[in-house]
């Protein structure tokens, strides 16, 4: 099972699904979209890749016969997927280099740490 390379949207989706796994709930497309605040195509691209990698599986909502509407599809981790996801999320994110800020270049700035 190759770990899919993570985009930030996928990172969010994985984190959310992991949370759901711990709460023993299942999530469907709109809930995921709403919770991670990403566009639908981005969420579904992540879901496609995760499904292809075997990390998650989907299952159809069971509707009573009388309700005539499209079924939702719920996603949750597979047993192997949850391991891989934990490893992936636990891996430290690459530290961003300290942000360079432009400093004023003239001599009016009060020197907070004067070198004596």
């Amino acid at each position, binding site marked *: 099972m190759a770990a*899919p390379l993570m985009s930030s949207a996928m990172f969010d989706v994985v984190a959310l699904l992991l949370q759901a796994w711990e709460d023993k709930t299942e999530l469907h*497309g709109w809930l995921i979209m709403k919770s991670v605040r990403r566009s*639908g195509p981005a969420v579904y691209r992540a879901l*496609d890749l995760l499904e292809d990698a075997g990390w998650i599986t*989907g299952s159809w909502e069971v509707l009573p016969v009388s309700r005539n509407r499209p079924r939702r*599809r719920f996603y949750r981790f597979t047993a192997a997927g949850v391991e891989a996801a934990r490893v992936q999320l636990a891996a430290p994110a690459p530290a961003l280099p300290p942000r360079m800020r432009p400093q004023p270049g003239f001599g009016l700035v009060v020197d907070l740490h004067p070198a004596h």
Partner: protein
Amino acid sequence: MNGIEIALALLLGLVVNEFSDLSPWLARTLVAWSARLRYGDTARADIRAEELAALINDRPGKLFKLATGIRFASAALAVRLRRLASNQPQPVEGPAPDDLLSSARRFLPMEFRPSLLVERYLFPSERFRGEWRRHPIHLAKSFVVIAGYAVLGSWATIRRIKPQYVDRIVAAIIIGAVLLAALRVLGWYLGRFVITNKRLMSTEGVFFRRVSMIPLLRVTDMRYVQSPLGRLLNYGTFRLESASRRNALRKIVDLPNPNQLYLRLVEEMYEPAAVDARLAGAPESPLDHEDGPRFDPAAVQREIIDQIGTLSAQLAALATAVQRLDPAPESGHEAPTVGSAAAQVRTRP
């Protein structure tokens, strides 16, 4: 406020109301269409179509539903166009290509052998790094130009030429346009942009042949430009500045995958050793296969027939052994299966 304005306001209200009722339906239609567009004929298309329709149902707000539907549709359209442009008509089932996520850092697959078209322009000791045709959009552009001139010419003919000659001249224009288009296709098919470890080359032309080059060392400045359509269809135009004032390869239009080409070129300029290492360490280089043992189908067929013969002989021996081990069937109820199977096996050769 007169009667017409009131009627208009009422009508507008009705239209808005109708539209907001229509938009959820439109959104569901759009997402179903986008699923088919995005996933083609795979099983996933049906799954996605239904669950996306459910997603639209869940999404609150009628116009928001429509916006979401449009987003899905446009994303699917972009994916489809990109797939068309890269000549990969159907989505592949199975393990995902992960280059969706990391396309910027990936490289085009390395070619190992120049085609015959290009090979004759390479000197023996230079190392070939790849050759590309121009993006098909190049062809489309020249078709548009040819069609434009043909229409213009026909129009001028109809306006200006005596009626008895018009048919013949229009026919000649059309034939000429078709021939020119065929020439353009052939030229596109034969034209190549080549990278080696020493230089960039472009070979073009059907009747007139133009082979131009620029040494890598002389490229002082390089950029590529992509139009919005180019970004959608993944092509771009390279501009090279060299030390000389007039270089032959100043502008190379409509190259496919410009960013990857750019990375290739830059790597070739700064880290030629890394390219060599990557080529040497490439796990599935076609060269390995070509140097490896070649098999010919006839020998394989003979081998398979031999093996089948040996196997069936062994099976027959096994069957007789099993029969000997078994007590002789008195009534034919106990062990007829093994016996009959053995008999079948033995009668087969």
